[in-house]
């Protein structure tokens, strides 16, 4: 393919206009390209967002027709003792676990970036758990942490310590989920690894020659260089935390050993695993209080948009980047 140079024979003036927007043919093309996306956004986001707002002002159980009840759902939302519990649980995840994940992933990435042989294998091993279906890994951890028969309990017994009850104990269920989350942070580790490789080596060398120690190097050279990636990772991790569902569902589902119940108690034990998305599911798809679930959804929407806006601050580069011109 030949690349046109500025010495190419002159073409009619209308052909090379790039300033001032698109030509008509291009305009139609762009519209055509955007069309599936526009339809998709309207049908699968616009329509539901409008509808969920309307539903939040009504009572609807999918059998009888919806009934307008004004702000009643919101009034209940502010007095429902489950809501603060759900919010606290989710916040805990969105803040504590995300921070732990970022630190852990960055730490491993740094360790791996310093070895030469075997770094591909190490990366592969760390990445593997993050690809596994979340309910499979949740089940695996339920088994591993079983206080009676699990290997972790056996190991703890070897050193003379009683195993905590993990998923049966409201104080240990979230730490157990944290362990599960940390086990699966391989995807963050991989992007940190790539970002670390991109840290300009001249800067690192210059700072060492200036007498900076490891901590100072990290703070003043490495960190600023990987900051955009950190920010991106933080945002995605937080948004994942706001949608956290599958693992919480599985973990509530398992009453180790006993449990003849055909009715799931989501949030077991004692609502310690009742995350906000789980509670929304319970209200909307177990009790079929669709109006109330819609109110919960509106709250989730508002919170996630605020969080996204706050965390994405300063990413204007992202939005305004353009393809390079020659």
């Amino acid at each position, binding site marked *: 393919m030949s690349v046109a140079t500025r010495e190419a024979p002159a073409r009619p003036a209308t052909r090379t206009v790039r300033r001032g927007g698109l030509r008509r043919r291009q305009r139609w093309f762009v519209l055509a390209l955007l069309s599936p996306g526009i339809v998709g956004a309207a049908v699968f986001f616009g329509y539901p967002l409008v509808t969920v707002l309307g539903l939040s002002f009504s009572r609807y*159980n*999918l*059998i*009888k027709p919806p009934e307008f009840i004004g702000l*009643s759902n919101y009034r*209940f939302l502010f*007095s*429902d*003792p489950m809501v603060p519990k759900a919010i606290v649980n989710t916040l805990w995840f969105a803040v504590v676990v995300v921070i732990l994940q970022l630190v852990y992933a960055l730490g491993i990435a740094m360790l791996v970036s310093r070895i030469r042989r075997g770094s591909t294998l190490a990366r592969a091993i760390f990445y593997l758990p993050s690809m596994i279906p979340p309910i499979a890994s949740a089940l695996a951890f339920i088994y591993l942490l*079983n*206080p*009676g*028969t699990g290997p972790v309990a056996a190991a703890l*017994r070897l050193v003379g310590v*009683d*195993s905590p*009850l993990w998923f*049966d*104990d*409201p104080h240990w269920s979230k730490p157990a989920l944290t362990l599960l989350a940390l086990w699966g942070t391989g995807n963050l580790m991989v992007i940190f690894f790539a970002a670390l490789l991109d840290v300009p080596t001249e800067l690192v060398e210059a700072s060492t020659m200036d007498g900076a120690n490891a901590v100072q190097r990290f703070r003043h050279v490495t960190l600023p260089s990987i900051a955009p990636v950190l920010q991106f990772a933080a945002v995605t991790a937080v948004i994942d935390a706001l949608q956290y569902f599958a693992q919480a569902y599985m973990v509530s589902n398992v*009453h*180790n*050993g*006993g*449990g*003849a119940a*055909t*009715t*799931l*108690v989501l*949030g*077991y*034990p*004692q*609502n310690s695993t009742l995350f906000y998305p789980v509670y929304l599911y319970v209200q909307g*798809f*177990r*009790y*079929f*209080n669709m109006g*109330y679930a819609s109110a919960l959804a509106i709250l989730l929407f508002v919170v996630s948009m605020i969080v996204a806006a706050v965390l994405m601050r300063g990413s204007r580069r992202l939005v305004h980047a353009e393809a390079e011109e020659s």
Partner: protein
Amino acid sequence: MTRRNAKSRNGFPRRRVAAALAVLAVAAGLLTGCGGSDDADGHVTLTMWSAYTGRELGVLRGVLDDFEASHPGITVRSIGAQDDDKLVQGIRSHDGPDVEWAPSDDFTGLFCSSGGWLDLSGRMRAAGIGQKQFVPSAWRATTFGGTRCALPVLADVVGFYYNTKLFRQAGITHPPRTVSELRADAKKLTTRAKDGSIDTAGFVPLAGFYSNAVQYFQVMFGADVFDGHTAKLAGSPRWHAMLRWQRQMIDDYGYTALNTYNARVGGNFTASNAFETGRLAMNIDGEYRTAFVKADHPDLPYDTAPLPVSDDHPERYGAGFVTSHIAGIPHNSAHPDEAWQLVRYLSTNRHAQLALGNGLNNIPTLTGALHSPHLDDDPRFRRFISIAENRYSVSAPGTPIGPAYQQIIGTYVDGWQSGSQRISGLSDVDEQINAMMAQAAPGEDW
């Protein structure tokens, strides 16, 4: 022609993309529409959902085969393993089942008040089906707020199981009749391993263990949830007595030791069940356990008895908890008439009731079958019939929110068991239950 493997925009050969889209169309067509259907000659296929699996599902299948034989033109597709969530979902789907079998009457309130199940009173009147044919508590369990949307099909009765050999070895001559006796016996029957963990448990007082439910403890103490239509646990002396008794028994063992034991035992409905394998001396369980024991551990030395009761009301000994299974027709069924045939058959046909009762070792709700000599005559099973008919036996109260109030109580009891809740927390429970009922169905008359 150089265009043979023309690539589409994303790099895949164009033909493959077209093929894939064709598959989508076909698959979408195949995957919609899996409910009941009609053949051209009027043959109807009903879909029935239940929670049964394995052996029990097989017993149900046998009864359904008999139904098909006596009702030519109707075929029944039986789908098991449908838990409560799915039953609730099923009444809202367009391809939902034609008949649902719910394993508890907790849902009567929910299904009748929401209109999820069809009101059957008209059909019952036309068929001459009425109260006299059924066990009283089962009949009560199928009405709610003036609507009768289900028929009772079977009853589960909860009583007390104990291992006679372990009793003999410990020198205990009769099953405990009061909770104090229960506590003393449990201490005698528990053995520990060298590391202090529980090897054989006398009795497990945790509400989440196996079939233990707060409702059964309630029966032992005569404690109710509702006073009229309001939840009133706080200040109830019977609730206080029950909770204190539970605390004492848990402290006897140690909460962590109990939970570790719980995490170690075999599944409730498997052959490794702790009671069936002799690792649990006394247990609260339903009458269906006799069938499981017969199938998996026929040599187990055990006997049954009514639940122990609180010391201050010994006259209540003999009472138990009755849960009625109910069958109804989701409101969006395409074949309500044929579905009614099936529901009616399961509920009022003596042969079917006996087959279900004997196959599942459940209590038939049809009195004609209940008193039939063909019903399993094992005295350990028959004891449950007298428990069912005892005047102090209770069933779950119907509410417009179904069993949701039980979860609120269950969460509180979980906290109580682990020591993180106090008696004063009962007033929060009341508040929550009442608020939930007000929010879901304000002012509804029930």
